């Protein structure tokens, strides 16, 4: 690790291959991990939605609708469907080749990006991505209906974990790794913000009117989408409040799916980047700015002044940073 050697290199007069990488390769690594992360989060989201549809059939429509909203897919869905039946929504979010946000499409994109950059990956990492693609495609082709859904979603999360595991266990800690890490964290921050945003009304002071407990199933769904229900209970015991959940998912740097954790990682990763130059410092400056913004707003203020507005702003900041990374490191001609 080279956290102390990050001081400004001026980018010119490079060569050692540890420093240089094609901009297109950086882009492929970054997007491979964004898609992989997206796939994994969509699997979590569908899992949570499925559970709610099982336990609360009368609200089925709104649950699946909110799941689609989180994936920014409601409009596209309604073009080809006119109800929110579990089977149709699951088919659309998981298997549909024509839905660019489906698990199948994200997986194909992740693998295609890995294929483009396979010379930068370790053999283990490439084989993990390729293996995930092969196995999950077989599983998706054989998927027969909702009785198999939990098993399918489990496999998806497991394959994603396998890729991250081989990546962590075999890849050099150089810029190749850093671009992958950035992609994963940018995507994860976005997804966590979206999960919260879809449910922000549950956490509003008006709906959680003083004294009335939060809707148990609703908050469980939020936590479940971030695989955080167990951790939350462990840390907070029975003390469940809107502020505690927001604080946990936004601010708690111990939680690897919290926005603060993602930004802490993004910030350190950008600072360690070997390919840093004056131009690429713009990305680091922006990350620092956003990171400070996140940490500077307490959950009470966020809820008081508008959780939705805070999250919308955060999603915009996040995609702005993603675009800045792409520019700074010359992803595109």
């Amino acid at each position, binding site marked *: 690790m080279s956290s102390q050697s990050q001081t400004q290199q001026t980018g010119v007069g490079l060569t050692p291959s540890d420093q240089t990488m094609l901009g297109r390769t950086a882009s492929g690594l970054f997007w491979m991990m964004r898609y992989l992360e997206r796939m994994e989060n969509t699997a979590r989201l569908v899992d949570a939605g499925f559970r709610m549809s099982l336990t609360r059939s009368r609200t089925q429509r709104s649950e699946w609708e909110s799941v689609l909203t989180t994936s920014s897919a409601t409009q596209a869905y309604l073009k080809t469907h006119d109800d929110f039946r579990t089977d149709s929504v699951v088919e659309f979010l998981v298997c549909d080749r024509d839905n660019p946000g489906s698990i199948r499409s994200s997986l194909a994109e992740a693998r295609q990006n890995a294929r483009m950059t396979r010379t930068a990956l370790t053999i283990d990492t490439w084989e993990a991505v390729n293996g995930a693609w092969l196995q999950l495609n077989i599983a998706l082709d054989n998927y027969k209906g909702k009785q198999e859904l939990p098993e399918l979603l489990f496999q998806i999360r497991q394959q994603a974990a396998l890729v991250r595991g081989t990546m962590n266990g075999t890849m050099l800690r150089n810029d190749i790794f850093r671009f992958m890490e950035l992609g994963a964290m940018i995507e994860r921050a976005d997804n966590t913000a979206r999960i919260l945003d879809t449910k922000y009304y549950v956490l509003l002071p008006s709906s959680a009117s003083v004294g009335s407990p939060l809707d148990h199933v609703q908050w469980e769904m939020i936590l479940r989408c971030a695989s955080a229900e167990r951790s939350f209970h462990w840390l907070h015991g029975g003390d469940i409040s809107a502020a505690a959940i927001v604080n946990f998912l936004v601010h708690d740097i111990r939680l690897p799916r919290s926005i603060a954790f993602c930004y802490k990682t993004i910030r350190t990763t950008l600072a360690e980047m070997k*390919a840093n130059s004056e131009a690429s410092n713009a990305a680091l400056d922006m990350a620092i700015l956003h990171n400070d913004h996140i940490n500077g707003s307490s959950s009470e203020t966020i809820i008081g002044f508008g959780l939705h507005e805070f999250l919308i702003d955060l999603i915009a900041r996040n995609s702005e940073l993603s675009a800045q990374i792409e520019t700074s490191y*010359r992803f595109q001609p």
Partner: protein
Amino acid sequence: MTKPLVFFDEMLGPDGEVRPAYKDYDAVVAGVDKAELLKKSAEAERFFRKKGITFNVYGDTDADERLIPFDIVPRIISAREWKKIQRGIEQRVKALNAFLHDIYHRREIIRAGHVPASLIDNNEAFLPQMIGVDPPGGIYTHIVGTDLVRTGPDEFYVLEDNARTPSGVSYMLENRETMLRMFPELFSRVGVENVSDYPMMLRQSLAASAPPACTGKPTIAILTPGVHNSAYYEHAFLADQMGVELVEGGDLRIVDGRVAMRTTCGFQPIDVLYRRVDDDFLDPLTFNPESMLGVPGIFDIYRAGGITITNAPGTGIADDKALYSYMPDIIKFYTGQEPILKNVQTWRCADKDSLAYVLDNLAQLVVKEVHGSGGYGMLVGPAASRAEIKAFRAKLIANPRNYIAQPTLALSTVPVLTKAGLAPRHVDLRPFVLVSSKSISVVPGGLTRVAMTEGSLVVNSSQGGGTKDTWVLTDE
């Protein structure tokens, strides 16, 4: 001409006895259960899938990526046979380079009357822009894959020279990897020449061809048309094995008189570009203006000595099948020797008498397009239906210059493993040659392509052909 072809089997003699080259192999494998072999075969296929050793087929929407069938019975060549092949290929490659230099410079072979000027000047693979250009080290064809077929105990013919951008070397290497994994015990019992240092040899060979503008250690890159190209796996594989960048046209730009790649820290010049795109797509400013695969302006940099392009632009003319028919003369002219490897008799349909003969004998001949490759657009007379022959005849009459014809060769067979046991299938052989100003190296091995369908003589992977590991035995 119509008498049935007799095929030479490389493993088994006419009485079923095992030929000498296969004796050691057979001693190990003969005792192995067929079911066990079939299991290994399935295992090999899974291995290829897992590693993503696949190719894309043009015009095939159904499956984007296919595996080339791999057969686990090796194709074995004795040390003595190999020596002859090796010398023959070296001779041919030397002659090819001399020929290419000559036709782009003084054109002595034309003046001497061995090759007609029209064949060169009217050839679309001839690049007038290359006239007078001296490629670094004087080498045109750095990487060659000569296609050979065998018809008898001591009869090897060169079928094609593939001096442009031969592919398949990754399969030579991966096939060996797979065999080593599946049958480690075989390699301890049979002495087989090593092929695995090909990527390092290639790297050295490319580095030895650095352009005048290169000052330090040469920066090498492979130029690929992209992830959708049928040979993308090979491009990525070679880049990986050599430890060089794999670039696309969109990654490159001319910066300060050099061809440079866009990296995360800015543009970095490239010294040697191993291009896997055709001449026509190399530079939209000089060649096909529609091309999105190349680099605008690269040709000017090349001429000014700012970059080495391998193989050199304009080498494609050596792959012309009409020119092929002149190879014996070309070899004699530049080396002063008789060709060591035979050429297949070839009728140039541009020639009136030849055309008449070909039209009369279509059912016995193989007819190919002069610029064709991959087994596309060819007619195998003995295997074709009447309707196919009739349709081909019309094409031939319409544009005779576009075709050559050859007798149907009795391609040798090597057994493949089928569900019913071993069965003979036709094969060819593509050894790989690396050329630099310092040396010519023929890698002891190559790609054996095998027609997986019984009786078929077409071995191309685009037509369903498979591959085998190719063993050259060590000299005891």
